[in-house]
C-alpha cells in the first residue's frame, strides 16, 4: 500500500495555473473558426485528455510513481481538471497542423517545435508546483514521450480525416 505525500495544502499558484490554463484553452477552442466536423473536433480534444490520463494515471504511477500531479500524490479533483487541460493542447496541435497545411516532409519539424512548446508548458507547470518528479524522472523523458505521442497523433490525424471524409460521403 502506498502512503500519500502532501506537497502543499493551500489554494495557490498551481491551482490557478490549471484553472487559467483550462479556461484560456477552452476559450481558444471555442473562439477559433471551425476547421473540422464536430465529431473530429471532439476526438481531437479527447486525444489530449486520454493521453494525459494514460500517462499520468498509468505510466506515471506504475510500477513506481515517476511524478505526482497537484498538491498530493493521491488523486484530487484538481488533478482531473489538469487532465482536461490537455484537451485544448491536442486540439490546437491538430488545428495548427491543418491550418498551416504542413506537408508530410515537414512533419518531423512540426512535431519537434510542438514538443518543445509542450516541454515549455510542462516546465512552467513544474515550477509552479503542478508536477512533482521523482525516481529520476525529468524533462528529458517527457521530451521523448512528446515526440512519440505527437508522431502518433499525426498518424491518427490522417487516418481519422480519411475516415471522416469517407463517412460523410456514404449515405
Amino acid at each position: 500500500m502506498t502512503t500519500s505525500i502532501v506537497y502543499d495544502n493551500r489554494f495557490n499558484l498551481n491551482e490557478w495555473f490549471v484553472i487559467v490554463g483550462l479556461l484560456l484553452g477552452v476559450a481558444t477552442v471555442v473562439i477559433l473558426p471551425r476547421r473540422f466536423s464536430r465529431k473530429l473536433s471532439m476526438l481531437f480534444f479527447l486525444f489530449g485528455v486520454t493521453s494525459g490520463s494514460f500517462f499520468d494515471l498509468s505510466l506515471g504511477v506504475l510500477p513506481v510513481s515517476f511524478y505526482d500531479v497537484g498538491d498530493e500524490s493521491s488523486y484530487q479533483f484538481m488533478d482531473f481538471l489538469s487532465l482536461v487541460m490537455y484537451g485544448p493542447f491536442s486540439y490546437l496541435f491538430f488545428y495548427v497542423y491543418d491550418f498551416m497545411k504542413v506537408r508530410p516532409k515537414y512533419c518531423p519539424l512540426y512535431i519537434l517545435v510542438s514538443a518543445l512548446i509542450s516541454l515549455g508548458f510542462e516546465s512552467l507547470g513544474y515550477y509552479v508546483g503542478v508536477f512533482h518528479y521523482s525516481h529520476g524522472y525529468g524533462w528529458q523523458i517527457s521530451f521523448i514521450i512528446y515526440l512519440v505521442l505527437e508522431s502518433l497523433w499525426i498518424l491518427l490525424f490522417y487516418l481519422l480525416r480519411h475516415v471522416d471524409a469517407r463517412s460523410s460521403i456514404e449515405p
Partner: protein
Amino acid sequence: MQLFICVSFAWFVIIVFTLIPKRLSTLDFICLYCVTILFTTTVFTLFDINFHTVTIPRTPIPSFATIITRVVTIPLLIMIAVDALQTSSGHKVRWFLVGGTWLFCMVFDWFLSALKVIIYHKAFLWHAISTCITYFVFILFAWVCTKLFKLFGEKTVRAG
C-alpha cells in the same frame, strides 16, 4: 506468468473484437475508447491510491500486466458491450450479449485478484458487489457517451 496470461488474454479480446460484427462507426469506437480509458483509469486510480481498496503491487510484472489490462482488455470488453447495445436484433439477444460481457468483466476482475495482479483489501463479498456495480456503471457511462457522440454527429449532418 501473470504478464503472459494478461497479454494473451488481451490478445484474445482483440481477436474477438475484430471478428464480431459491429454496428458503431470507426469514429464512434475511437470516442468510446478514449472515454472508457479516461473513466476507467480515473476510477481504478481512486480505488488504488485514494481508497486503498484494490491496490496494485509496485513490481514490474503486475504493473505491466495492469497497464495492458487497463489499456486493452477492459476498454475493448466495454466497447463490445456498448456495440452490442446498438444491435437491431431482439431485446433478448442484446441483453444476453451485454449481460454476458458484464459478467465476463467481473469474473476477469476476480481472476486478476487470484493471479495477484491486483490485491483486494476487503472481504470478497464486498469486492464482488463493488466490481458488479463498477462495471455496470462503466458500461452505462460508455453507452451514454456514445449516444451523445452519435447525436453530436447527427446534428452536424443536419446543420450541414
